[in-house]
């Protein structure tokens, strides 16, 4: 379950504050995933005291509103990423950045689809009932990333697809590229050993829309933790 409390001393009207929170939630907490289960309790409450002495923000289109929105986005993204980083059993944070769509919401949908993909983060061996992760297994499998982008429900031309893992380009103009497999695998391994961040970049066209989503790898410990946990 996700719970969050946000506070600010900015002076802002109720209508604007509620819209700001929704926008920030869509750019942060609604863009993380650990295990694909939507809780019955997810809640973020945001309180604005108005005690900073700042001018009252009553329009979403004002410059001050954009400044406050950026701060709110930053705080909520920072917290959201730390939740994905601390995902049960996780050894690394996965950050997916999608560019080239027409709208932010389209990029967000593709990014979340990739971050949520159990094939990208893991594939389940039915025979042994154990989990082997593409990320956890340090396997730079671009096909799984392309697959998850493709079923997100946002149309794009496959020939526009470009996928990078860290600094390594795995696919460009829809074609897989020769790449240093050892270096790419080492990048994943290093992130896992240091509980660091795996950065996946996906471009699907020439539009101005971009968004990010965050997840984590799926390790054996996830199953262990949830087998033992009860309330």
């Amino acid at each position, binding site marked *: 379950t996700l719970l969050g409390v946000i*506070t600010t001393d900015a002076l802002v009207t*109720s209508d604007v504050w509620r819209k700001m929170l929704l926008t920030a939630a869509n750019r942060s907490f609604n863009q*993380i995933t650990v295990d694909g289960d939507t809780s*019955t309790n997810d809640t973020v409450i945001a309180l604005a005291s108005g005690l900073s002495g700042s001018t009252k923000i009553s329009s979403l289109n004002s410059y001050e509103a954009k400044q406050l929105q950026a701060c709110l986005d930053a705080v909520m993204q920072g917290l959201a990423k730390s939740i994905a980083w601390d995902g049960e059993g996780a050894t690394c944070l996965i950050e997916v950045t999608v560019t080239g769509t027409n709208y932010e919401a389209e990029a967000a949908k593709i990014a979340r689809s990739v971050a949520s993909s159990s094939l990208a983060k893991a594939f389940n061996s039915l025979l042994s009932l154990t989990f082997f992760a593409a990320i956890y297994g340090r396997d730079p499998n671009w096909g799984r990333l392309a697959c998850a982008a493709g079923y997100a429900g946002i149309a794009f031309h496959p020939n526009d697809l470009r996928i990078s893992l860290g600094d390594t380009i795995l696919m460009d103009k829809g074609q897989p590229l020769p790449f240093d497999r050892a270096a790419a695998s080492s990048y994943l391994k290093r992130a896992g050993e240091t509980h660091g961040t795996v950065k996946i970049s996906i471009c699907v066209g020439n539009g101005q829309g971009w968004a990010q989503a965050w997840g984590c790898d799926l390790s054996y410990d996830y199953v262990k933790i949830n087998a033992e946990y009860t309330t």
Partner: protein
Amino acid sequence: SSSSSSMTSLDQSSKYIPAAPILLPQGPWKEVPGGVIAAKGFKAVGMYGGLRAKGEKPDLALVTCDVDAIAAGVFTTNVVAAAPVIYCKKTLDNCNTARAVLINAGQANAATGDAGYQDVIECATSVAKEALLHSLPKLIDSLSSTIDGGDSAAVAITTTDLVSKSVAVECEVGGALVRVGGMAKGSGMIHPNMA
């Protein structure tokens, strides 16, 4: 990226779990300590109220505002919403302001039916029984606008989390210095779809 300054704090709450590294996006803001208490007018505290089945990690958090704060919320869109979610949604439907948020850990409160909702009403009106009721006076007395208050609240809302999550930034907005802070918990059952 930067680490939360609370990571090095030696306050009581850090005995239980360390603070998370907070990966703040780059921007014109400056990170400041305190999390939810960084902004003017807010106090917070976390304490052990005997709600957890195991251990004595803080399990009850309270965040208050000295004035009526403009309040907003986003909630799970899961049809089977827990009683506290229903309560908070109703409250924000009827009122634009709030003075406090009370959060507990260690007690499952989803799919608890009418009895669960009644528990929420009783908690919110401070007439709950046993552990929660006995803890509330101490909780309120311990409210603090210090960094420790914010840190202890961030620990008190955790469940299976291995680290607490708390951060605040300061930035110039409309010619004045404004602070935005927050705390969160979450480790498993994470695929939010809130509105």
